[in-house]
């Protein structure tokens, strides 16, 4: 027997130190999964120390009935067993507490008293030898221990059964109005808020601020500061003013430290007062679009915060089994047993992949099958998930014929059916689902009449019909889009325009004038362009406002020259890549004249010699230049083209004086077309004079202009 006592006392030492230790470092402790069953035995085991302690106390009072030796032995035995079971119970309780979800204050008390019990009984085993002689002291201490037991037990019971468990039957239960369509909005939705958040201070017993809210008449009477609300006037209703004040202010209601109104509750009170604060109007008599009505439904239906699920967690292996790259299954959050599944990539979807999810049949609460080729035959599979809450079937291939099977999912609260072929009758079969709060039916056959009817019949379900194009809203069309990527057209390359919408007319001009909807030239096939051309285009379409304009400049290049040399050097800063720039068929950017594609000249003529290996039949030469008026880059003053068979024998073919802009214009890539006498040419000389003086209207009038060239083209 001594061995037993010895083992027990070691156990007690170890157990109590562990208990204290855990208690001290409570915040850092993480409980491994395998311990939790031990923790959960706490509620069962706790009855042992209670029972033993009662036996112990009874024993103490019947000392005389026993032989001293056996009395001492029994008391010691029971005391040690009490201490050991107390300690184990306390440890288990500690583990259980880490699972969370208990009232923090009660839990704290329960922990302190529980640890107290364990330590107290342990201490008694230490001093037992001395105390066993002093009956009185022993009785007192045991009685004290019993009180500790009762306290610990009380707090523990309060945690699990609620604080008023024992005397609950005596309490007159407040009648919680059941939310119904027929009761008044006030009774169904407003009164519960007032009862919960206001009446603890404003009742028959406690009349703070002379306001008593215990009956409608008394509420309407108001308090010290007058009546609580003015129907329809949210700005001058005292109740709302107080609620909206910052919480730090003394007048804020409910006062700091009391349970505050939630956002929805505030919104409901506001909406209800705004909509007339009618004390009698029934919920069903509010118009469907009433904000108060929808908030009332929201609050009465969904007041629970975080959901607690009763089903068990699945193993990591199962989770790995149901996951594929095209079906992703994840817990809703760390530690949550509930799962959501989403399918991706419609080509990889088949019924089997959905069947695979039955391994987590119980745990699945959210399922998204949007855009998957789900058919009516698959609905019976979906109906097999008993705890499904949220289902997304947007843009699937279902027709709705088997939708009624989903009524098996009693927890289904949100169903998205947008972009499917369902109809009203089929949807109606779903609407009676007890938990249903929202359905999404955008882009289905349901029209506003059908939705109104359903809303009337099932007011608890929000039906979202989504966006419908307003035929009276006239939008501006986007401009035509250019297909070409290169602005130099070689050989027979056409200019191609397109528009992203169907039945659009593209109006265009090639003469530099601005097109509008009356412009008769309509684009219907790619445009063949035989020379330097500026194309301006805009789009029109019935039911739309005309688009803005686009403006593109195209250069035509029928013959590529073989060599080019510069007879006059460009400006130091804008030398580009030299003469080869002129015949490389690469345009320079119009927003950066420093780009290497450009050659810049100022106060000096541009003179270049171009050669073909064989004579070519030419009719025109195009000089491509830059216009950036703000940077003094202007059209040239004149362009001369000389031609012949060799350098020594050139004739002046043409001289052109380009038009100068008469006002500020945008930056642009432009060109000057110089028509020449048709003939075979081998060598050409181009002479360009930059503008000697900026025009009078220019901010820097009188200063010399620049000439920037990137290409010379031959046709």
């Amino acid at each position, binding site marked *: 027997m001594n061995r037993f006592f010895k083992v027990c006392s070691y156990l007690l030492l170890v157990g109590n130190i562990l208990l204290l230790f855990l208690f001290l470092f409570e915040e850092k402790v993480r409980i491994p999964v395998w311990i939790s069953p031990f923790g959960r035995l706490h509620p069962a085991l706790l009855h042992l120390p209670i029972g033993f302690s009662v036996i112990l106390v009874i024993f103490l009072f019947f000392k005389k009935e026993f032989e001293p030796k056996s009395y001492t032995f029994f008391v010691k035995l029971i005391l040690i067993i009490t201490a050991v079971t107390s300690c184990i119970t306390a440890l288990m309780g500690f583990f259980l507490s880490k699972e969370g979800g208990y009232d923090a204050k009660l839990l704290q008390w329960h922990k302190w008293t529980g640890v107290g019990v364990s330590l107290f009984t342990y201490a008694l085993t230490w001093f037992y030898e001395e105390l066993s002689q002093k009956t009185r002291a022993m009785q007192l201490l045991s009685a004290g221990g019993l009180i500790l037991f009762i306290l610990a037990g009380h707090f523990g019971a309060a945690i699990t059964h609620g604080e008023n468990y024992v005397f609950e039957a005596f309490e007159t239960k407040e009648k919680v109005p059941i939310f119904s369509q027929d009761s008044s909005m006030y009774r169904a939705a407003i009164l519960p808020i007032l009862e919960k958040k206001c009446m603890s201070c404003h009742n028959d017993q406690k009349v703070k601020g002379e306001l008593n809210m215990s009956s409608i008449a008394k509420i309407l009477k108001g308090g010290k500061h007058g009546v609580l609300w003015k129907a329809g006037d949210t700005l001058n209703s005292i109740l709302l003013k107080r609620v909206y004040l910052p919480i730090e202010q003394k007048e804020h209601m409910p006062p700091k430290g009391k349970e505050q109104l939630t956002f929805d509750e505030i919104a409901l009170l506001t909406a209800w007062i705004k909509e007339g604060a009618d004390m009698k109007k029934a919920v069903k008599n509010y118009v469907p679009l009433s904000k108060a009505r929808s908030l009332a439904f929201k609050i009465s239906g969904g007041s629970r915060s975080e959901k607690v699920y009763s089903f068990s967690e699945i193993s990591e292996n199962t989770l790995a089994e149901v996951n594929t*790259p095209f079906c992703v299954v994840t817990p809703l959050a760390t530690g949550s047993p509930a799962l959501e599944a989403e399918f991706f990539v419609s080509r990889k979807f088949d019924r089997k992949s959905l069947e695979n999810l039955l391994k987590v049949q119980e745990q699945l609460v959210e399922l998204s099958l949007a855009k998957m080729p789900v058919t009516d035959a698959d609905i019976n599979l979906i109906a097999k998930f008993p705890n499904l809450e949220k289902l997304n079937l*947007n*843009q699937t291939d279902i027709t709705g014929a088997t939708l009624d099977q989903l009524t098996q999912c009693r927890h289904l609260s949100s169903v998205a059916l947008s972009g499917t072929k369902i109809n009203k009758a089929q949807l109606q079969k779903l609407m009676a689902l007890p938990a249903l709060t*929202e359905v999404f039916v955008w882009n289905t056959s349901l029209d506003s009449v059908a939705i109104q009817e359903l809303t009337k019949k099932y007011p608890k379900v929000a039906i979202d019909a989504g966006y419908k194009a307003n035929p009276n809203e006239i939008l501006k069309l986007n401009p035509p889009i250019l297909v070409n990527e290169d602005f130099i057209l070689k050989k027979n390359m056409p200019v191609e325009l397109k528009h992203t*919408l169907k039945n659009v007319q593209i109006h265009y001009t090639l003469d530099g004038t601005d097109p509008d909807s009356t412009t008769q030239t309509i684009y219907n096939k790619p445009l063949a362009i035989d020379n330097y051309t500026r194309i301006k285009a805009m789009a029109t379409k019935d039911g739309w406002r005309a688009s803005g304009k686009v403006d593109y400049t195209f250069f035509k290049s029928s013959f590529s020259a073989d060599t080019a040399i510069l007879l006059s050097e460009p400006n130091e800063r804008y030398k580009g890549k030299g003469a080869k720039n002129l015949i490389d068929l690469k345009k320079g950017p119009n927003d950066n004249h420093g780009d290497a594609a450009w050659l810049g000249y100022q106060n000096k003529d541009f003179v270049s010699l171009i050669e073909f290996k064989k004579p070519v039949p030419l009719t025109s030469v195009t000089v491509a230049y830059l216009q950036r008026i703000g940077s003094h880059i202007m059209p040239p003053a004149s362009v001369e083209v000389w031609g012949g068979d060799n350098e020594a024998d050139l004739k002046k073919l043409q001289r052109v004086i380009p038009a100068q802009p008469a006002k500020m214009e945008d930056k642009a890539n432009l060109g000057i077309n110089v028509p020449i006498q048709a003939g075979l040419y081998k060598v050409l000389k181009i002479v360009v004079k930059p503008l000697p003086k900026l025009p009078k209207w220019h901010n820097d009038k009188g200063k010399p202009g620049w000439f920037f060239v990137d290409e010379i083209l031959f046709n």
Partner: protein
Amino acid sequence: MENEFFKNRLNITRRHFLSKSAVGLGSMALGSLLMPNLFSGEEENLAQLPLGLPHFAPKAKRIIYLFQNGAPSQLETFDYKPLLNKMAGEDLPESIRGGQRLTGMTANQTKFPLIGSYFGFKQYGQSGAWVSDMLPNMAKIVDELCIIKTMNTEAINHDPALTFIQTGAQVGNRPSMGAWMSYGLGSENKNLPAFCVLLSRGRGNGQGVYSKLWTNGFLDSTHQGVVFSSGEDPILYLKDIDGIDKDSRRRMLDKLSELNHLGFEASGDPEVQAKVQQYEMAYRMQTAVPELTDLSKEPDHIVKMYGPECLVPGTYAANVLLARKLSESGVRFVQLYHQGWDQHGNLPNEMPLQAEDVDRSSAALIMDLKQRGLLDETLVIWGGEFGRTNYCQGTFTKDNYGRDHHPRAYTIWMAGGGVKPGIVYGETDEFGYNVIKDPVHINDFHATVMHLMGLNHEQLTYKHLGRRYRLTDVAGKLVPGIIA
């Protein structure tokens, strides 16, 4: 091989799990086993909580961030200040400016003439929020929006301000918001990147965007933002080249991955693993992406909803539509940038063009998510990097003016995913210069966005160069006032 990505994620949680479930009984020793970090002195190199899952039930699963690059003026969009119109031309009182440091562009101005909005304002919706006449479509959905008028930042120039709001620090090379989300929550759809970036350019004065805004920083490079092309093909080089069929591509990748694993065994460089994963991702994207660009399942009136430009690749509207499709397909974080909001001058002429670009499609996105039942799980954010001054920069005339950068107060909005709809949060003074109620600092904004995504901003950390980093670094408070 196709499970590679997923298995890896499980490995992390399993290691974590094992480290927690120490076995054994015995007083102190047992206790310390329950506390893996108590005596070890060395922190685990993993985040405090398992990666790849939200820490608690999230309000939002995905984010679409409509970033208005260049900083749209709050005074012409959502923060209506009639006093500025009354006091037009008068100098900004020094008591209001309160020693605010200025940019090099206005620091030498001798006068700071106040100027009110050129555009009218009206109140809309149940919330009665003021919205500029420039944004008629956003005004229509104002009851879905949570307008925050008191955003404030520390930076006064674009680069540091952009870097701050995108990465939580003004200096570069920290992971951006999207990378943190990808790191903390993993990808939803294994066939697309968890973090995508879409760029567009408006007609107003623009500011640059650069890859440090979507960098993975010190995180694994799989978390980097993937920039989509603005051309017809949002992702280039996805098609198999001529003569290479799917099977040979598969064989090539398998062989390549074997070689890479040899390389990894030799060097131990985790970037090798990241590379293997990226090849796999690209392979799976070959199947997933064509479905994304497919418009055949969308009804015609989607064009009217988002505006006709939504069909023109590279426009903001097209990016918003693509963002919706990406988000719908499980992309955790879609980041848009629309350039052109930097109105130092010519504001009355440039801002309407910018507004025209973004108004209709931004509003359409909210409606579109809503009608698909996705708005409650998708957080949409609209806004820039800072605000603009209430005084004129440069030459002041009644109908043409500009505004410089202003860090102390500016407006953004959020919608969907767990934010309160139909509220205006925070107040600025009558000059629109200082916050007088409920400020929201960039760090607070990050903390709140992370909270909405089910992440504790203090617990999502990464150890780098000897210390642990967070998106909010050492600051950031939740803003409960905007959380539904």
